[in-house]
Structure formats: C-alpha cells, structure tokens
C-alpha cells in the first residue's frame, strides 16, 4: 500500500500547494489558522482516500481541501471573501469546504466534525457503498464529548470511519500534557475497543501507510480506526492573534522549523531518489498557480445581499422567507 512513483510526486505537489497557499496568505491576506507544519499529516491521510470518500475538517481548514486535491482558485477566492469562492464568500477561512472533493464540513466548533464524519460513515454503510469517511481533528478536540460519543457509535456499528488527529501539541496555548489525563491520544482507542495508532506526522509516507491500512479495514467492514499523527504548528494558533505569554519556547519552534519541516523532509527523500528536477518543476508550477489564484481573487466580485437569502434553503419556504428584509 505504499505510494507509487507518480503518487509520490503528487503528494509532494499537494504539500507544496498547502505551504505556498499559506505563505501567500501571510503575504497578502493575513487571516486564518495556517496549516504550515501539518502538510505531511494532511496529505499523507488524503492520499489514502478516493475522490468519492468523505472528509470533515476543522477551523484549521485550508490544508484539507488542498490535500484532497481541490482546485486552488475557489479556495483562495473564498479566503478573500469573494463570490467566486468555493463557499461564495459566506464561509471563509475556517470553512474551506469543497463538496466536489467529498468534503462535507470544516467545523469551527471544536469537535463538531466527529458526529458528521460518523454520519457519513453510517450513510455509506446503509447505502451499501464501500466509501469511507475521514475525520480530521486536533488534540484539543479529544476533550470534547463528541469525540467519545461518536467514536463509540462508529465502534458499535463498525462504521467505515478514520478518526485522524493532527496532534500539534497545543490547543491554542494549552499543552496536551496539562489538558489530557491520557496524553497518548492513540491509546484512547482502547476505551472504545478499536485500533489506535500513533505515527510520525512529519513523514508523509509513514502517515499514508497507516491511513491506507485503516481505510482498507474500513472498506472491508471491520470498523473505525483512531490515528494520532504527531505534528507541529510552525505559526501561531491564528494569524494576528496576540499571544501575551511564551507558552512554547523559541528553541522548540526553531527546532521544528529546522529539523522537522515536513515539506523539506520529503523533498530531501525525493531528491535522494533522484527526483530533484521534478521537485523543482512542481515548485515552479505551484508558485504560478498560487500567484494566479491571488490575482484572480483580488479582482473577483464580492457576494451580494440576495446571496444571503439564496443560500439558506434547499427547499425555499416560500414568500414568508425574509419578508421585507431581503430587499
């Protein structure tokens, strides 16, 4: 279940896309929760999925659709709040949900995605398809009630769900060590009678391997798996957030940036395999894609007043909906 040669380069492309997407935001539109540092965890997980598999994500949402292979332009336009954005400028940075790629929710309520991913797994089981559902969440989310409630339901019904923790060590500023009675998150799986696996979240091929195994299990009807990818957030919880204390040391941050950069680590692996030129071509191509997306987003129109009403209901409730206010 390892990545073949083409898929290795595709994994690198998606990682670079996430990295440069986020760097463009720092330069041009500094809003949001960046996924820099999480690229290998996200892409390794997504590369183990099919296009028709479901994904739920978090407030740190940018990486998930990119990892799943979404088009960059509508994602960038969304962050700029434009009508051409994937969510028409109504969702924004914490909610980059591209339904065409199987994303059904990027929840800015921490832990909000657990039930939704579980429900998507239930849906696949009831409809008799072999789709799976992958739930991205952070270490902080494991302290929400929905974590245990949802995993328990997936366990008793053997639902095809992969619960994938991007453990970056901190819930905003609160360390795992001071907020988790069992800081070894993978071990929490024992409480639900399902497998729990920890993996180096900075190694994209290692992540892909464990997720691929969990996906195979899920497709065979053997139920859910909890995966803890140990990763690191290179930037602050969100752009522009004032951090009044030093909750993690500069040495720690510098160490991860220098020694544990997932994009640099994978680039080195690919170069060792003699693929430096291909990597450079990918980097140039992605840079052009991102630049074009920023330019296009800047020029795109803003959403209109009527869009607020037009996106509320699938079965519009008739003239009573927003009497007067709509005009």
């Amino acid at each position, binding site marked *: 279940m390892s990545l073949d040669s083409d898929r290795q380069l595709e994994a690198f492309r998606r990682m670079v896309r996430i990295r440069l997407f986020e760097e463009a935001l720092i330069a041009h539109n500094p809003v949001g929760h960046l996924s820099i540092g999480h690229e290998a965890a996200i892409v390794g997980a997504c590369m183990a999925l099919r296009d028709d598999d479901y994904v739920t994500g978090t407030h740190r949402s940018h990486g998930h659709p990119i990892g799943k292979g979404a088009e960059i332009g509508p994602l960038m336009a969304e962050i700029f709040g434009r009508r051409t954005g994937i969510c028409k400028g109504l969702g924004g940075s914490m909610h980059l949900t591209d*339904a065409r790629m199987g994303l059904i929710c990027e929840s800015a309520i921490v832990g909000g995605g657990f039930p939704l991913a579980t429900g998507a797994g239930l849906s696949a089981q009831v409809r008799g398809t072999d789709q799976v559902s992958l739930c991205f969440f952070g270490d902080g989310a494991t302290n929400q009630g929905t974590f245990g409630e949802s995993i328990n339901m997936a366990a008793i019904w053997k639902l095809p769900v992969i619960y994938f923790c991007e453990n970056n060590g901190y819930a905003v500023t609160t360390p795992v060590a001071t907020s988790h009675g069992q800081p070894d998150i993978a071990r929490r799986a024992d409480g639900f009678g399902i497998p729990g696996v920890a993996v180096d979240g900075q190694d994209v091929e290692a992540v892909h391997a464990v997720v691929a195994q969990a996906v195979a299990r899920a497709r065979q009807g053997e139920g859910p798996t909890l995966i803890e990818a140990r990763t690191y957030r290179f930037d602050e919880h969100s752009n522009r957030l004032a951090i009044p204390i030093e909750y993690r040391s500069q040495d720690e941050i510098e160490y991860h940036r220098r020694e544990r950069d997932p994009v640099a680590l994978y680039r080195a692996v690919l170069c060792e395999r003699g693929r430096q030129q291909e990597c450079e071509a990918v980097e140039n191509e992605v840079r052009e894609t991102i630049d074009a997306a920023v330019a296009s987003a800047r020029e795109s129109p803003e959403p209109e007043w009527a869009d607020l009403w037009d996106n509320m209901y699938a079965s519009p409730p008739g003239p009573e909906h927003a009497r007067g206010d709509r005009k």
Partner: protein
Amino acid sequence: MTLANDTVRLSYLQAIVEAQREEMRRDENVILMGEDIAVYGAQSLFEEFDGTRLRNTPISENSFVGVGVGAALTGLRPIVDLTIASFCYLASDQLINQAAKLRFMTGGQLSVPLVVRTSTFYNNRTAAQHADRPYPLFMNTPGLKILAPATASDAKGMLKAAVRDDDPVVIFEDINLWNKKEDVPVDPDVLAPIGKALVRREGSDVTIVSVAGCLPHALKAAEVLAERGISAEVIDLRTIAPLDSETILNSVARTGRLIVADNSHKVGSVASEIAAMVCEEGFDTLRRPVRRVTAPQVHVPYNGTLEKQLFVTRDKIVSAVETLD
C-alpha cells in the same frame, strides 16, 4: 385498493408511526434513529425493516443528532427521534451550528434533509428538566423549519412533508395529544404543507392563534365564547418557522383582535413573535391590544396541582378574550 379519500381511525402517536412506516417504504434512504426506539415508538417497524435502517442509539444526544446531519449530507434522509424536547439542549450545537448552517456556510453546496422529532412532555409530572416546550429557542435560528402539529392528520402529514423536504426540520410533538384519535388519510402521498397555518374555525370578532397543543383548548374556548355571543376565529399555527404571517394578518384584518395561545414561557415566546409581527405589519387593523396566553416565567414544578396551573386552558383563553371588550 384504497381510494384517495379513505381514512382510518388513528391516534396522534399511531399516525406518527404510520408516517415513518410509509416514508421508509417509499424511499430506501429514509432511516430512523433514537434512544430505545426498538422498545418505545418503533417496535412494529422492526418487524418490517432490518436493523440497517433502524438504529437504537447510545445516550449521546448531541452526537446522534450530528450523525443524522452527516448522514443527511451524504445521501440519506434520517429521522432522528430525540424523545423528549428538553434533550434538544444537549443536541443544540449540532442542530444550530451544523444542521441549520451548513448549507449557508458552504454557499449552497450541501443540503441537510434531516428530520428531528421530539415531544414536549408537559402536564405529565416530570418536573422542570423534562417538561420544556423549547420551540421559541429554535425559531430564533435561521435555517431550521419548526413544525408543531396539533392533530393526528397533521402529525402524519407534516412528518411526511418533513421527510421529503430538503432542509433540516424539527418537529415538536405534544404528549398531551398522543392519545387523541381522528380519521387520518390512508393515501401515503397526502402531505400537510410546511409553512401554512390553517383556520380551524371561522369567526369575525377575535382571532385566536393556537400554537402546538393549545388547539383543543382554543376550540373549546371558541365554543364557550360563541355561547356568549362572541365569534372567535381559531388559527392552528402548525408551522412555527417559517411563520405564516399572511394567514394571521388576513384574519386580524377582519377581527381586529388577537389572542395568541402558546405553552412556551412568555418571554421570547412564539406568541411574542406573532404579537410583534402583527404590531409591525397589522397595527392599523388592531382595535385592541394583542394578548398572549402563555406559561409564566417560572419553571415547571413536580407538583401536579401547581403544574396544571401553568399551561394554557380553555378558561384562560376565554378570560383573555373578555379583557378585550
């Protein structure tokens, strides 16, 4: 063979079970989930459908409602039985932050064809944590359709309409109506429309808008008032959101007087919203101030004698009408 107008005598609760059975037969994507449904409420469905589409859930209200949302996002039409309306608070994050918002927040990419059924357990000596009528809280959430059927036919027809609707619908059933029997249409395609109030009794002197289980009391009040020479029009609201303002305003335009009977607590009640709407949009037609007949702003006591005094009755409605002279 059944004819279009055939009916069968069913209780409100039986009508709900039949609606579920018919919709599950009609569409294999309809599933039913909830606590203890195998024992209470859906036993007979387990004889007809296998466990794949019927899920007895663990006691995890927020998550199993959210599981319903996730299933609705991905091709199913789940009916989630939330049993007792006070449990809505546990599930309110998934109902409000996910079910109600996901279509909007994704720019219309997704839809959430979810039905949440829940019963208001008041007048039943269950005390304050089981007895709430919390529909006004959810009326304040755009994106949710809120139904409150008051007859067996509506309990069936509105649930069926909700299952076929592409948006999240919350249905507040009323246990005080569970045993009320009525001739209910047999035709599985008879639906009660969402968003339409119904004039249950025509009148010319005063409009009584009845919310949810107030209907029997409002109709009895209209009879008493008729004996006293007052002609009351009774509107069964049926849908709390979206509100059928037109039916209410048209009636008040003829009667000039409005009473709203609503068993929720007075502050921020459905009655409050209707009163405000009529004052804004129909003030010129009002000949007297609007009156709300609601539960007062105290909790539901365990003591049955006290509890009964909290809720809407025939006599409270009659008294309220008499203050308008």
